[in-house]
């Protein structure tokens, strides 16, 4: 306690220095006077008395110094001194300061932006009670990676009832619905939540009430709707009267009961959920018959709140036991399943095999780190050059008794100050970039790009600045502190030797870092190119998609069919329209239907769930409109209607998987389950992409709309004119036929392809990587140019002598360039090795390109070498034009 009290007083002692000093002086003076007076009384002469007193006091200045050391913290005072001195030096050299601060700002800014993204995606905790207790439960079926499927409702209930490791197990199903309110329809991303969802998360409504355990998981009840906060703001203007409002969801009456808290955006981060419905309402969806009973319908994303004191491995053990029990109980569906307990942050937006988002996040942080290193090396260069100018000053300090550690501290203080200034500018730069970043639109889900700066981002920027200050300042400081005081002071000569070595190493390191960045950027660009060049299985040019769902607007089966017939006719008649046809879904960008498929010729394995296959319901014109090639057999005709036998067209992959080495035409399979309709295959279509542009080929089949009624359909319009130009007309025609049918979505195929399931992720990745590559290149070039120019300046004298002795300008050019070339080659070699090593770790992030793609390696090497040599050539040219007379008089 005493020690702490004394410590505080000492901290206090750092301030009010002058007053305290004068007080001490007064006290000592008083002491002296008393002593003198006593001495006089003892019979000394005045001079003698004073002299004796002074000797006894033992040096006023020393006493004061001792006293000061005790009063405050001497190290802190010398630090403040260093800071003051550093700031003065920086003010005196505004050019130097500006260059270094800007370089640091670039490096730290890039890091801050990338980190704020990673932070927003992966690190920001959910705004719920005790978020660290929340874990994602990922069900994993035998031989299938994590994250391919969720829980079925009966499985979820079994696990929830049997585990005691969690205080709550809760769930949601992510989907989209159409909300019709006030004669307007909106697409909502929704969570169907289990009854205990909000209670388990410990959330309170912003307004009204949330879905309560009492609302139950009763299936088929008229649903209650809780709005997401920002959707409430956006759609209803934050109107309180919204509670109790009657609306229609997917054609059914529903009631809005409340608004979720503002900071809670759902359990599908980083996507934002617009509304919450009771899990029981899932049954409203067409594809969800038997949702409560079918152990094969795995759509539920489950979470658990760990009981206090229960660790993840302990919870894992508990679930493993239950999984084993269930496997014995339901071998057909649950054999070999496991449930993995994953901390919530590592399972965003949902559990994924091999943590792909975390890998990408770390990868970009590494890139950003390389950029910071490049920036640091440039700063080191500049500081080294300046250390040479300050050599005399430093030598004088050393001669006056400054120990090396003191010199190092003082020089480090300067670079740290620069780095902190750079950090502040970098934060400003990053903040500005974030604000200017264009908002990104996703077709299906509102991605919330919320890269707000919280304390983590500030801490990271601060850490980056400190790191940058030390890394860039330490080598010059160490060098300067070791300088030979004698030789510097004696002849003012420039010490040579180690300096060139350090400069060379810096150039090599910069070239290597920059090359690594460029190669990785190149690999991302090639990935994007590959994806964009991938054959999609259809022709996406000149297609406009119109999605409607008349059943949501109260249309029955007959009126819906009539509406579509009329719509198709009128759109086909529009000028500029080449063809139009209807389908249940559109490839890439909307949810395709799935069904279990049981091949008739293969006996069903009782231990295995029949595979769930994607399919589309189409009309006879679909293949022609979309340009899907039919490889064998025939397409659908008007004759394939309700009265005709059910038929299907499969894709190549499905044909190969289900009927290997056989002609699939004429084979039959059942949809849905063992008693479902038996469908005969009449054709084989070309493989394509169905859900995302980057997926592998997967089984897929088509069935006729006439035999498989759906109310939600896409009208795919192929045009001769730019499809955007038709949009207004299509909208008018739709309203002319049925003013009460709302348009769910109207956009071109190209626009859909830019979305989240299309090229968006790849474009974002590639553009980030390219920008980082270019920043890296810029920094490296500036660095190389700086080092070579500096070397030329240092050697002006030598060059003059060489020329005086008869060297031609060309010889000088070669002399200077040779060194540059050697360094560039060395840097490129190191960079190639580093890229190769890094490439191996990112190979599974790349699509359709090897991590050692020779084109990328060659292009990056050539590009960097050319630019780097140009950076050498400019100073070399200057060296060539050195006038020997001037150069010799130089010193």
């Amino acid at each position: 306690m005493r020690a702490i009290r004394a410590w505080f007083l000492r901290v206090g002692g750092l301030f009010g220095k002058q007053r305290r000093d004068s007080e001490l002086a007064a006290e000592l003076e008083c002491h002296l006077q008393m002593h003198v007076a006593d001495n006089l009384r003892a019979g000394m002469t005045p001079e003698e008395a004073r002299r004796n007193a002074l000797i006894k006091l033992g040096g006023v200045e020393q006493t004061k110094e001792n006293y000061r050391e005790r009063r405050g913290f001497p190290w802190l005072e010398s630090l403040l001194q260093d800071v003051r001195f550093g700031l003065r030096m920086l003010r005196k050299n505004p050019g130097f300061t500006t260059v270094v601060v800007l370089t640091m700002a670039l490096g730290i800014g890039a890091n801050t932006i990338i980190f704020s993204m990673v932070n927003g995606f992966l690190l920001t905790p959910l705004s719920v009670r005790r978020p660290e207790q929340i874990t994602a439960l990922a069900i994993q079926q035998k031989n299938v990676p994590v994250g391919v499927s969720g829980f079925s409702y009966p499985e979820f209930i079994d696990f929830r009832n049997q585990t005691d490791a969690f205080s709550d197990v809760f769930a949601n199903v992510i989907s989209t619905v159409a909300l019709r309110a006030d004669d307007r329809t909106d697409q909502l991303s929704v969570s169907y939540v289990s009854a205990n969802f909000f209670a388990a998360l410990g959330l309170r409504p912003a307004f009204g009430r949330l879905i309560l355990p009492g609302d139950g998981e009763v299936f088929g009840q008229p649903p209650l709707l809780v709005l997401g906060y920002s959707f409430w703001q956006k759609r209803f203007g934050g109107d309180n009267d919204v509670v109790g409002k009657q609306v229609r969801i997917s054609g059914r009456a529903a009631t809005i009961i409340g608004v979720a808290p503002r900071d809670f955006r759902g359990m599908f981060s980083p996507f934002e959920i617009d509304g919450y419905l009771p899990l029981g309402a899932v049954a409203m969806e067409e594809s969800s018959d038997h949702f409560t009973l079918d152990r094969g319908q795995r759509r539920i994303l489950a979470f658990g709140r760990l009981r206090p004191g229960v660790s993840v491995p302990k919870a894992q053990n508990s679930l493993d036991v239950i999984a084993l029990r269930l496997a014995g109980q339901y071998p057909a569906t649950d054999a070999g399943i496991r449930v993995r307990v994953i901390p919530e942050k590592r399972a965003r937006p949902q559990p994924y095999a091999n943590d792909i988002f975390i890998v990408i996040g770390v990868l970009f942080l590494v890139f950003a780190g390389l950029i910071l290193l490049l920036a640091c090396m440039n700063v080191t260069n500049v500081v080294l050059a300046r250390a040479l100018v300050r050599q005399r000053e430093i030598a004088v300090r050393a001669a006056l008794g400054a120990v090396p550690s003191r010199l190092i501290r003082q020089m480090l203080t300067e670079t740290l100050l620069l780095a902190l200034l750079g950090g502040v500018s970098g934060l400003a730069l990053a903040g500005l970039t974030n604000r200017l970043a264009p908002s990104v639109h996703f077709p299906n889900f509102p991605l919330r790009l919320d890269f707000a700066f919280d304390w983590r981002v500030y801490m990271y920027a601060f850490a980056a600045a400190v790191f940058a200050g030390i890394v860039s300042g330490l080598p010059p400081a160490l060098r300067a502190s070791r300088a030979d005081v004698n030789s510097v002071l004696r002849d003012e000569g420039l010490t040579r030797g180690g300096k060139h070595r350090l400069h060379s190493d810096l150039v090599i390191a910069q070239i290597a870092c920059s090359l690594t960045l460029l190669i990785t950027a190149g690999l991302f660009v090639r990935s994007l190119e590959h994806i964009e060049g991938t054959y999609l299985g259809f022709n996406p040019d000149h297609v406009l998609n119109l999605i409607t769902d008349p059943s949501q607007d109260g249309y029955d089966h007959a009126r819906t069919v009539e509406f579509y017939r009329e719509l198709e006719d009128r759109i086909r008649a529009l000028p500029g329209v080449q063809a139009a046809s209807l389908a249940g879904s559109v490839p890439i960008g909307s949810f395709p239907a799935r069904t279990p498929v049981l091949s008739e010729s293969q006996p069903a394995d009782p231990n295995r769930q029949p595979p769930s296959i994607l399919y589309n319901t189409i009309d006879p014109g679909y293949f022609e409109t979309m340009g899907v090639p039919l490889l064998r057999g025939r397409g659908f005709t008007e004759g394939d209607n309700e009265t005709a036998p059910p038929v299907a067209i499969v894709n190549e992959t499905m044909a190969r998987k289900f009927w290997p080495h056989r002609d699939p035409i004429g084979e039959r399979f059942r949809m849905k389950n063992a008693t479902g309709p038996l469908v005969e295959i009449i054709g084989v279509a070309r493989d394509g992409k169905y859900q995302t542009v980057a997926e592998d080929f997967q089984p897929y089949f088509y069935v006729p709309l006439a035999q498989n009624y759906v109310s939600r359909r896409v009208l795919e319009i192929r045009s001769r004119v730019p499809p955007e130009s038709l949009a207004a007309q299509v909208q008018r025609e739709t309203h002319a036929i049925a003013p009460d049918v709302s348009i769910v979505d109207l956009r071109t195929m190209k626009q859909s392809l830019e979305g989240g399931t299309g090229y968006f992720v790849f474009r974002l990745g590639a553009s980030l990587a390219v920008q980082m590559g270019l920043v890296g290149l810029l920094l490296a070039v500036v660095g190389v140019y700086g080092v070579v120019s500096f070397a030329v300046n240092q050697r002006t004298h030598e060059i003059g002598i060489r020329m005086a002795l008869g060297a031609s300008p060309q010889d000088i050019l070669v002399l200077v360039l040779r060194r540059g070339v050697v360094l560039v080659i060395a840097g490129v070699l190191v960079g190639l090795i580093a890229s190769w090593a890094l490439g191996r770790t990112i190979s599974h992030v790349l699509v359709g390109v090897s991590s050692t793609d020779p084109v990328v390696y060659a292009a990056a090497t050539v590009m960097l070498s050319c630019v780097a040599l140009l950076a050498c050539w400019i100073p070399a040219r200057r060296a060539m034009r050195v006038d020997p007379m001037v150069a010799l008089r130089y010193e």
Partner: protein
Amino acid sequence: MANDKSDVWQGTLALMVLKTLEAMGELHGYGIARRIEQTSGDLLSVNYGTLYPALLKLEQEGYISSEWGVSDNNRKAKFYKLTRAGRKQLEKEAREWEQTTAILARFLAPGEVSR
């Protein structure tokens, strides 16, 4: 030091200061130094360069407090006095010191420690 008197070393100086203040009440720095020297029978010489930092330390630790006042011969001086915590600390340190000296005395007494 030019004279043959022993210097007072740090740890004991604090104890002497506290004891002096206990005996004398309020006293200024010069008075404390003189008093210590006198009490020691002029065997000790107080180095003022260490006295003032020691006073500061004691004050920071809360054992003594200081106040500007006027001395006997009308001089402005800083007076130190013992606080309650200082009194306790003095008791404690005195006890410890007695123990230490008792132990040392046993060591130094001839024939008591077996070789």
